[in-house]
């Protein structure tokens, strides 16, 4: 397919890192907006009325562990251990789904408590920031799902380790973003 590259890095992997660089600016802008508007909300409810630290700690832990599953999936596919690949890919996607379920619960709970998207400045910034992150997680889950289907079909082996690695880079980046959001939104409330 493609020949050797000038940097020695495969094109798709370089592209993913470049994309991640661009995503840093996307999330950077969203985070800047959240931080600038922190404490400027004029209409209740306020962040400290609603944010549930113990609950979000659990989902944060789940997302962190999904990153571990992801590297284990990569290690498995690199040594061509297809059973382990399938297991770890499935667990990564499952942990991602649990995180999304937690976010769904959190969002619907907030709306139920009187914080729809258009309620106030907090609802605007909170939902758009965490929602953008959630959309990234959802995209990652779908991506992992296609890899899992390919693995189950027997079409994913050590020759495709690069594909798994690139999906993993994306997944870890989404995790890294959450590490930042967890601290800035929830712990620095």
């Amino acid at each position, binding site marked *: 397919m493609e020949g050797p590259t000038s940097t020695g*890095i495969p094109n798709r992997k370089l592209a993913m890192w470049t994309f991640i660089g*661009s995503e840093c600016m*996307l999330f950077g802008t969203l985070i800047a907006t959240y931080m600038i508007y922190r404490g400027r909300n004029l209409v209740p409810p306020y962040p400290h009325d609603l944010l549930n630290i113990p609950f979000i700690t659990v989902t944060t832990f789940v997302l962190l562990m999904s990153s571990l599953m992801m590297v284990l999936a990569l290690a498995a596919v690199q040594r061509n251990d297809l059973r382990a690949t399938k297991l770890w890919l499935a667990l990564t996607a499952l942990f991602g789904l649990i995180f999304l379920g937690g976010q769904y619960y959190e969002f619907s709970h907030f709306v139920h408590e009187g914080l729809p998207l258009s309620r106030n400045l907090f609802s605007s910034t909170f939902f758009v920031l965490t929602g953008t992150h959630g959309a990234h997680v959802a995209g990652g889950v779908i991506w992992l799902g296609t890899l899992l289907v390919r693995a189950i079909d027997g079409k994913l082996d050590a020759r495709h380790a690069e594909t798994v690695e690139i999906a993993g880079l994306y997944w870890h980046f989404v995790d890294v973003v959450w590490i930042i959001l967890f601290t800035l939104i929830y712990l620095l409330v």
Partner: protein
Amino acid sequence: MAMTDAHSTGIWSWLTTVDHKRIAIMYFVAGFAFLLIAGFEGQLIRLQLAAPARSLLDPDLYNQLFTMHGTTMVFFAGMPLVVAFFNFVVPLQIGARDVAFPRLNAFSFWVFLFGGLFLYASVPLRVMPDGGWFAYMPLTNPEYSPGPGIDFYVLSLLISGVGSIAGGLNFLVTILNMRAPGMTFMRMPLFTWMALIVSALILLAFPPFTVGLIFMLFDRRFGTHFFDAAAGADPVLWQHLFWVFGHPEVYILILPAFGIVSDVIPTFSRKILFGYPVVVFSGVLIAFLGFGVWVHHMFSVGLGPVVNAVFGGATMLIAIPTGIKIFNWIATMWGGRLRFRTAMLFAAGLVATFTIGGLSGVMHSSPPADLQQTDTYFVVAHFHYVLIGGTVFGLFCGFYYWFPKATGRMLHEGLGQAHFWLSFLALNMTFFPMHFSGLLGMPRRTYTYAEGLGLEVFNLISTIGAFIFTLSFVPPVWNLWRARRRGEPAGHNPWDASTLEWTMASPPPHYNFAEIPTVDRRDPLWHPYIEPESRGDGDEPGGAVPRRQPHEPPAPVVMPNPSHWPLVLAVGMLLMTIGGLGSLGLTLFGLLVTAVGLFAWAFEPPFGEEAR
């Protein structure tokens, strides 16, 4: 299948093409069409202002026209024309057969085109956006702009922004990864260098704008409060997000022009570029500093003396690397054997007119001076000098330089010279008087002015200049038409230039290089110690030798397959965009088409077998 499609010329072959040279032509044609449309809008504005209290345009239509003029020029004329040159030139200059992701390249083009067409759908519907190309909040919030005009602006820039980011990613990877053996960073032609820097700028500058547009869309559609002062927000945040993007954007438009003239001036001076590493690093420095100066567009907001001083100082710093480049170009010409062909005229014209625009730019970097100039025609004069005298002249320069390579035909020199002198005259005649009308206090974006303020003469001269500008497009269009039948064959290297794109036939075969060359010096076609004339016509490519040993068979040429999935994906995104005007069903259907296109794309084999 790949074979037949790669060589055919039917409409389907253009819709499914992934060939960077064909995509370049499509970008050029579409970008040039938008340039003419936006130029016409500018002409209408000048007609309205030819004399005081004219009533050719009413205030509403005037607002719509300057918004469409600015938005089109920046996003749908300037950027696609720049990307047209990236597409045509970069793979040839680095010795590659195509870009890193050919289908992504086609996708970038289609979403740009659909974004532009979507914006212009507002014209027949008579709902053109009217908030300026900067769309400042709160003027553009649902209360003050209730109609769908601003939604056309927001949605068209969201969709075309996706194409820009994809293009930036593609060219960054292409230049980092697809260079021929021996093409180290410090051997890359300057145009490729600037394309690399601009790709990085696009990747870092567009996301803040995208986020700002999403905030604006949500404020307008879903009642959020991102720019709502009553909810505790600050509408000035929009200005920050816009200019965090907007300032790097001006370097996205100017650095490619700098790259073009940095290749053209050495060619027509028969001297290597003076201070190559300095020109490269000043480009890097301009791009880096470009992220730290956005507030100079906002001095009159009143952010306080500390903020204004910091950003004013950073802005003045940018004059240093920019000035360095100008001195390097002059030093390259100094003592060279100059040939003033059309491309060289435009390059020299750029050095002169960009310098004028650059100097007025340094004037507004000082906040107290800027406060006098903000929102007057002085600023209009400044940025038209840099955008026309810089970007547009650079693009014309590149057009005359690479046209023979792209088509295999020479352009008529006399018509080219007429084009240059007419546009040079027109630029100065239209925009130089604006320095005076601006300093006399004439405000921008106001549809008329009163009699007796001393503005009549300057405005009349500007309007006559604008007419000459319109006229100046006759020679190049005639020239293009003429070249189809009567242009002389160009040969491999009509200008005796030094870079790899001149090693192959004109127009290049679709695989570009039959064999990938190995590069051993910065100007591979110029032997450093032999006069250019004493060499052959590029048929003996001095510093670019095929690396194959004489007895080895050539390596097989593997070319990407044509694909219709980029177009399907772009159509899906267009449907989502149209749905963004208020139809959730259409948005979801577009999402479905996008998803289908994405999956089909992912599982389609990207490369053919052997194609030669």
